[in-house]
Each structure stands twice: as structure tokens, then as C-alpha cells.
């Protein structure tokens, strides 16, 4: 038992030590990784555990980001208070979207969510909402201050704040999946008809999955707005939805750690791709993606699991 906890504790210790070892902008980038990981947690849940493909999760990310921005800018809410609001709004809209999505399967859902992702920037720019959203110019936000006079700088404080929120969400989703809900969620993915025959309320499970997924991604969006201190429609194009999907797949869909690996991929690989070719970074990105999908469909998390099995199996007598 202690042996299994050890790597987890080790990782947590590293995560806590990082902001003191890294320069400011690196702490900022690490914080961004955390916000993406939270967003991917939602997508992994929906697409990996529940089998519903979403090419439009950028819309929920944008929803959370704008909720946080509008509340901070126009209603003067403190940044931490905007998170429950983003969660609530994201969760409800996700649940509502899940209802018509019930009738859509596989590729059709991908199509519908793709359209959602494409329509999002235009919606955000809409003249009617301009007084709230700032239109194409967007909204500039204030950087959160370090509270209680803690001996941290603003970047470090934000890192720990996001880390705490992420840890809480990961724990909550983990618990959710461990119980009977988790079994039902996976059952609905693997064999919906058998699940229904066993008494699972497919509709309820699927809309629940959509709602929780949108909630997580929305919180991720809110966190990223607070960290970047700026929201504008151009930040939330269809490329964001595609990026999130890429991260989820590369990280490993049916696993929660996959969200973390995926977030690391999203944040750092484009820089590497840029080194290879300034003119076509997305091409390199796409090529890496295809290679990974073809050779390693379970993603990074699957690879890690594979390695763990090999080493742990050896160490057993």
C-alpha cells in the first residue's frame, strides 16, 4: 500500500517544489499546463470514458473563460469566486447540450460539436453581447494578488491556486469514476444496449457525463483567463477545440493521468515543431499526431502503464 502511494507523493512533492526552482515565466507556463490539464480532464471523461466524441470543447473552455472575465470585469467579483460560477454555467450548458446530443452517435456528434467549435468565435463577437464581452477587442483582467501576505510572487501564487483547484477536481472525478457511476459510464460506452438491458439509464448517464465534462473544461477555461489575464474571441477558434482533442488523444483517453500528459504535449510540442519548421509548425504537429495514433493508440498514459507493468512485474518475486 505504501509502495503504491510513494510515486504519487513523490510527484506531488515535485509539483510543489517546481515554482521555487523555475524562473517566473516557466512557472507561468507550468500554470498554463495545469489549466489545460483541467480542461482535458473534462474531455477525457466525455470522449475517453463515455465514448462521446467532441470536436467543440473549445466552446466550453471559452464559456468558462468569459464567465470569469465578465464577472471580474463588470461585477467586480474576486477571481476565486468566479470558479464556482464558471463550473455551474459550464455544467448546466453541457447538460443541456447533452440532451439533443443523446440522439447523435459517433461521427454525427463529432460533426455537431465541430459546428459548435466553428461557430464559437462569431458568437463571442456578436454585437448584441458586446457591452459584456468587449467584442473583438476582448477584456483585459487584473492579475490576482498574493493573499495573506504569503512569501510568494504572483506567478507562484497562481500556480499553487491552480494546482489546488486541479487536484480537487481530479480527486472528485476520480471518485466519481470509481463508484457505480464510473462503471455505468464505461458500460454505456462499450455496449450501450447491454447496459440498458442491465438497467442503466443511458440517457441520464450520457447527459451527466456531458455536464460534468463541460464543467471541468469550463473551470479550466476560467483558470486560463485568470492566468493569461486576457480574453478575446480570437483565443477560442476551432483550432483550440482541435488542440484539446489532440491533447486528449495523445495523452491517453481513458485515463485521468492522460489529461496531464496531454496538457504537457499541447503546451510544449508546438515550440518544438516551430524549431523544425517555422512555416509549417502545424504540419509537424499533425504528423506527430498521426504517428502516435497509428503506433500508440492508448497514448502516453497507455505507454506509461505498459512500462510500469514491465518493471513492476519484474520486481515481484
Amino acid at each position, binding site marked *: 500500500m505504501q509502495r503504491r502511494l510513494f510515486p504519487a507523493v513523490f510527484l506531488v512533492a515535485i509539483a510543489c517544489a517546481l515554482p521555487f526552482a523555475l*524562473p*517566473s*515565466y*516557466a512557472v*507561468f*507556463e507550468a500554470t*498554463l499546463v495545469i489549466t489545460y490539464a483541467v480542461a482535458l480532464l473534462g474531455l477525457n471523461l466525455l470522449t475517453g470514458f463515455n465514448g462521446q466524441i467532441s470536436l467543440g470543447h473549445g466552446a466550453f473552455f471559452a464559456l468558462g473563460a468569459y464567465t470569469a472575465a465578465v464577472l471580474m470585469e463588470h461585477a467586480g467579483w474576486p477571481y476565486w469566486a468566479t470558479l464556482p460560477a464558471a463550473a455551474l454555467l459550464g455544467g448546466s450548458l453541457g447538460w443541456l447540450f447533452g440532451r439533443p446530443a443523446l440522439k447523435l452517435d459517433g461521427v454525427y456528434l463529432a460533426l455537431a460539436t465541430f459546428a459548435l467549435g466553428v461557430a464559437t468565435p*462569431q458568437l463571442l*463577437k456578436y454585437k448584441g453581447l458586446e457591452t459584456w464581452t468587449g*467584442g*473583438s*477587442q*476582448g477584456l*483585459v483582467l487584473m492579475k490576482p494578488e498574493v493573499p495573506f501576505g504569503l512569501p510568494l510572487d504572483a506567478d507562484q501564487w497562481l500556480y499553487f491556486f491552480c494546482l489546488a483547484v486541479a487536484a480537487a477536481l481530479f480527486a472528485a472525478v476520480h471518485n466519481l469514476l470509481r463508484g457505480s457511476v464510473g462503471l455505468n459510464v464505461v458500460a454505456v460506452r462499450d455496449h450501450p444496449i447491454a447496459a440498458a438491458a442491465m438497467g442503466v439509464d443511458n440517457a441520464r448517464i450520457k447527459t451527466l457525463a456531458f455536464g460534468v465534462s463541460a464543467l471541468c473544461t469550463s473551470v479550466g477555461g476560467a483558470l*486560463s483567463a485568470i492566468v*493569461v*489575464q*486576457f*480574453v*478575446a*474571441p*480570437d*483565443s477560442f*477558434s476551432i*483550432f*483550440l477545440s482541435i488542440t484539446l482533442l489532440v491533447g486528449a488523444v495523445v495523452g491517453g483517453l481513458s485515463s485521468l493521468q492522460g489529461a496531464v500528459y496531454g496538457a504537457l504535449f499541447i503546451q510544449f510540442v*508546438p515550440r518544438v515543431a*516551430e524549431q523544425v519548421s*517555422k*512555416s*509549417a*509548425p*502545424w504540419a509537424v504537429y499533425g504528423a506527430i499526431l498521426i504517428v502516435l495514433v497509428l503506433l500508440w493508440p492508448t497514448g502516453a498514459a497507455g505507454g506509461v502503464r505498459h512500462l510500469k507493468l514491465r518493471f513492476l512485474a519484474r520486481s515481484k518475486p
Partner: protein
Amino acid sequence: MKKLALGLAAAVLALACGSAAAQKKYDPGASDTEIRIGQTMAYSGAASIYGEVGKTQAAYFRMVNDQGGVNGRKLNFISLDDGYSPPKTVEGVRRLVEQEQVLLLYGMFGTATNSAVHRYVNAKKIPHLLLLTGASKWNDPQRNPWSMSFYPDYASEARVYARHILEHKPNAKIGILYQNDDYGRDYLRGFKEGLGARAKSMIVAEASYEVSDPTVDSQIVQLRGAGADVLVSFSTAKAAIQTLRRVHDTGWKPTHYLAQGAALIGAVFNPAGPEKAIGVISTAYSKDPNDTQWENDAAFREWLAFMKKYRPEADLRLGSHVYAYSSARLMVDILRASGDNLTRENVLRQAASIKAVQLPMFLPGVVVSSSPDDYRLIKSLQPVVFDGKRWNRLGEFVSIF
């Protein structure tokens, strides 16, 4: 006697060391051998065409380095891709300032992207110079003393058209096509301000379009159907090409005013068919690379030689290259003027005290100048009209402020 001589020598030496130390001042990013210039630019994504500007600027700096650099220092130009996504701009700028330790930020593109970082750069006192955006908010030395743009102000340009219409066509019925983002909307606002009280009565229709829209046919139909006899297009290249074609094909003959960013012979008029653009009115501040009237102009020849040598693969129809060349030239001038005092404060001071510079690829008479109260570098535009082959002057230079 010896003591006096020694004392004098020591004093002279001390003075020399002291003033030598006072002469060379460096902030992070500057040294005896190099000056680091940072930039984020849209090399990927929907706005990737602007990446050409960054590439030509890099080529210009390479040329300057080949010729010995600026005051003996090499220019180290670090340009990162932000895909026109503000979060990536924030990341890129923080990396440039905090890890790459650049002296200044130069030529960044876009309103939303620059808005995402302007508070940061002003707080950290990093010169944020010669931005590629014409939005009015960038020339506010009171609130954002470190940010300065280098592009004709959109709203002011629109006011030029408004004034021209009021003067020459006071009974016009105006239809406006505008891009649905801060670019188009800034123009629209300036245009309405320029018409003043008569805006409501003269504008019969407004139609917007998204950059991603496949065609603007529907919008043109709408504008024509509203009875407009003057068409004002606040659009970028693609929509402008489609507009010219569509307007011609439907037999509509309005007086057509076109935003200068889309008024390019090679990139816009030729694909549409130059005869369809006859009579188009716009404003200009620089020489159109496909306008044959500049063929024998010395400055044009120099520019062409530069492009052929340093960017042979570039498509010369794009307006980006003339702009990039002029902008890079101005940046080098600012750095040269800073001499050995390469502190951020001094670089900004030099940028804010440019005295009537005539850039070679700018139209004769359009001078660039700035002062600590007035960061608006381009202060006049030349109204022009296209005759099917070249741009002809339409009256005198107009001061846009």
C-alpha cells in the same frame, strides 16, 4: 613637477574612464556585440499571411548585419509564432522578455494580441515599438508610454473618405461593407464620425462579413438593393477581390472607396481583373510594388534588389514586403540614433523623437515623425485613384489628424 604630471595624468585617466563608462549603457538585451530584438507574429493559423512581414523584417536585419550591424553590433532578431492567438502572444512575450532577455519588442501584429500584453510591457517598461496595427488605442503616450504603433490609423483614414464624400458627393447614398472584427469596426466608427450629423441620412446600408465567409455576394446584393451609389469597403484582400468582381459582374457602378490595406495592384486588382478596379479611390502612404510608375525610381530599385537577394522566394505582389522593409529601416534608424546608450528608456526616447524622416519606399512627402506627446508616426495620407494601370493622385496630401 612629476607629482603634478602624475596627478594630471591620473585625473585625465579617471575622467576618460568615467566618461567611457558613462558612454556605454546597456539594459538586458544589449551588449558590445549584439542587440536582441523580440517579436511574436502570426506565422500559422488564419492570419498566417502576415507572417510574410516578419520574414521580410528578419531578412532586412540580416542585410544590416551583413553590412556591419548597427554601431558595430549585430542584430539578433527572435521572432516567435503566436498563431494570432492572444494566450500564445502572452506566452511568447514573457518568454522573450524573461528568458531571451530582449532589449525591446518590435513590430507585433494585431489588436487583440497586442492588447493581451500591453499592460505587462508597460509595467515592465519594455519598448513595444512599431506595432503592425492601425487601431487608435496604440498611440496614447499618457497611459501607455511604452507602446507605439506604425501604421495609418484606421479611424482617421476612414474620416478622409468621409470628408471626401461630403465634399464631392454631398447627396450620396452610401453602402458600407466591413469586416466583422476590430479592424473593420474601427474603420466603421471613424467613418461615421467623419460624416458627423449626416451619417444617419447618408448611410443606407451596412453589411458585415467574416474572414472565413466563402463569398460576400449576399452582402453586395444587400448593399446594392438598398439603393447605394457609393460603396465603401473596409475589407481585406480576399473580400476586396470578390467585391470588385461581383460589383462588375452585376453591372453596378458605384463610386468605390477601398481601405488602403486592400488597395494593392498586384495582390488584389490583378487577380480580380484590373479593368474592374478602374475608378477605385483609396489612400496611400507608400509605393505600390506593382505600380509601373515607380519602375525607374532609385528607391524602388534598391528595394527590389534587396528582395531578390535576401528573399528570392517571396511573392512580390504582397503589400507586406514594402511595409516590412520600411518598418525595419525605421527600427534600425532608431537603434542607430540610440548610439551606445542602449537602455530601454533611451530607445523609447529616440522612438518618440523622430524628426521628419522620409523613408525611401514611402510616397514623397509622407514623412514620419513623433514627439513625446504624439506617437502617431504616419500623419498624412495621399488620396489616390486607380486608372487601370497605376495610382494617380487625387488632390493634395491630407493630414489625418
